[in-house]
């Protein structure tokens, strides 16, 4: 009885599969034909449409897709709470800092076309940029002022985050990344100081790296430094300068840290920073809150309840 039933069922299934395969064959045949036709007429391909984008309908779905499917925007949330972007809350300082970083990267790369990081030429190149290179003075001043502004914007951003309590749960990790980014910004500023190779930068770096002598353990004049065998020729200052005095090696090292290494490290941390902003509940406003009723609906699995501080 049971066997008989199974046999019948099996037969029915087999027939259905046969029918499906036959249908599929037809479909594939037609598709193949279409493809063959399109190959004969290459101007009818999607190639140009794929390069020169077309305007899509302004539907909410398309607007969300334009963010989600774009490599440059995909870190950004597809939708932002209307209240979260109020300048009253955000001051826009994080965005301004990022904008200034882009400006600095762009003007910095342009300046690199004329600058040689060597003792003989560095200061001459600065004079050349200032006095003879077309738009050189403008570029150099843009780089300089954007650098000053970036330091100010970073501090104001940190101040705003502190005032709105945005360093609290669940944003602690992002606060730490932010502190690291602030230190990297200061290091960028410091390493850029030496590059003109003028008196101001030279003595500023002399003073700055002399402070590194007092590093605990790693500096020759720092606590426990001498005990660990640190001398002016093997301590942390020596590694920074590539020598015991601020000279050609120090200039080249400052240049490489300034133009390549620190921007690279900072970019990685920036990507992390922006990603975490989104994951931790957006650019401003309280941390995501779950209502009691929402929690009861989901049974078996207890979500983490995130409450703004002060709410029990």
């Amino acid at each position, binding site marked *: 009885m049971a066997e008989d039933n199974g046999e019948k069922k099996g037969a029915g299934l087999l027939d259905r599969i046969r029918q499906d395969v036959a249908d599929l064959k037809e479909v594939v045949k037609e598709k193949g034909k279409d493809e063959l036709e399109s190959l004969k007429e290459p101007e009818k391909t999607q190639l140009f449409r794929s390069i020169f984008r077309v305007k899509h309908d302004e539907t909410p779905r398309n607007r969300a897709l334009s963010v989600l499917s774009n490599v440059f925007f995909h870190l950004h949330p597809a939708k932002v709470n209307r209240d979260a972007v109020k300048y009253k809350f955000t001051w826009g300082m994080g965005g301004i800092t990022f904008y200034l970083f882009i400006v600095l990267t762009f003007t910095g790369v342009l300046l690199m076309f004329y600058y040689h990081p060597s003792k003989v030429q560095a200061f001459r190149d600065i004079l050349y940029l200032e006095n003879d290179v077309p738009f050189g003075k403008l570029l150099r001043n843009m780089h300089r002022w954007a650098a000053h502004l970036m330091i100010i914007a970073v501090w104001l951003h940190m101040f705003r985050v502190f005032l709105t309590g945005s360093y609290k749960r669940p944003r602690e990790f992002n606060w730490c990344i932010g502190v690291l980014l602030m230190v990297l910004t200061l290091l960028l500023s410091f390493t850029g100081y030496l590059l003109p190779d003028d008196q101001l930068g030279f003595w500023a770096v002399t003073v700055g790296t002399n402070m590194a002598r007092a590093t605990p353990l790693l500096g020759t004049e720092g606590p426990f430094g001498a005990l660990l065998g640190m001398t002016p020729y093997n301590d942390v200052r*020596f590694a920074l300068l590539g*020598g015991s005095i601020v000279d050609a090696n120090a200039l080249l090292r400052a240049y490489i840290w300034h133009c390549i290494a620190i921007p690279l490290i900072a970019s990685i941390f920036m990507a992390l920073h922006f990603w975490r902003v989104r994951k931790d509940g957006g650019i401003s406003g309280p941390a995501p809150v779950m209502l009691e009723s929402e929690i009861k609906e989901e049974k078996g699995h207890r979500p983490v309840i995130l409450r703004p501080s002060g709410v029990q």
Partner: protein
Amino acid sequence: MRRRVIWGMIYGYLGINLLMFLRFFFPRALYEPNTVFNIGYPADFSLGIDQRYLMTNRVWIIREPDRIFVIFARCTHLGCTPEWKSSENKFKCPCHGSGYDSEGVNFEGPAPRPMDRARVDKDATGKLIVDTSRLYMDDPRAGVNQFNDPGAYLPV
């Protein structure tokens, strides 16, 4: 077990690479002025402060009636090079304003101690050899005064 061995090898490899990376930042050969140099005979120096070797070797040679010593021209505050102001009879640091008297002893500004003195010796021919990699300091806070040690000055 096998997985742990493989991961151990990978971490070991990366660790050794990190050490190489760190060591890479400490060059062996330096193209810097030699720290040991010859400044000639004691008789070449008249009483007072001599600036001949300031630009090349960062030192002042101080000749007193009974001795000669060498001040390493580095401010003890944050390492700038002070300037000798003969009209005011003092060394003045342009960075943060530390002042030192004609023997390099601090009396104004943020400097915590007198300027260090470099080792000075006489070689077999009677010429003076200075070594700025061997400094003698007088640090009242640490209770160390090496200015009267042999090598910190040369009786003449």
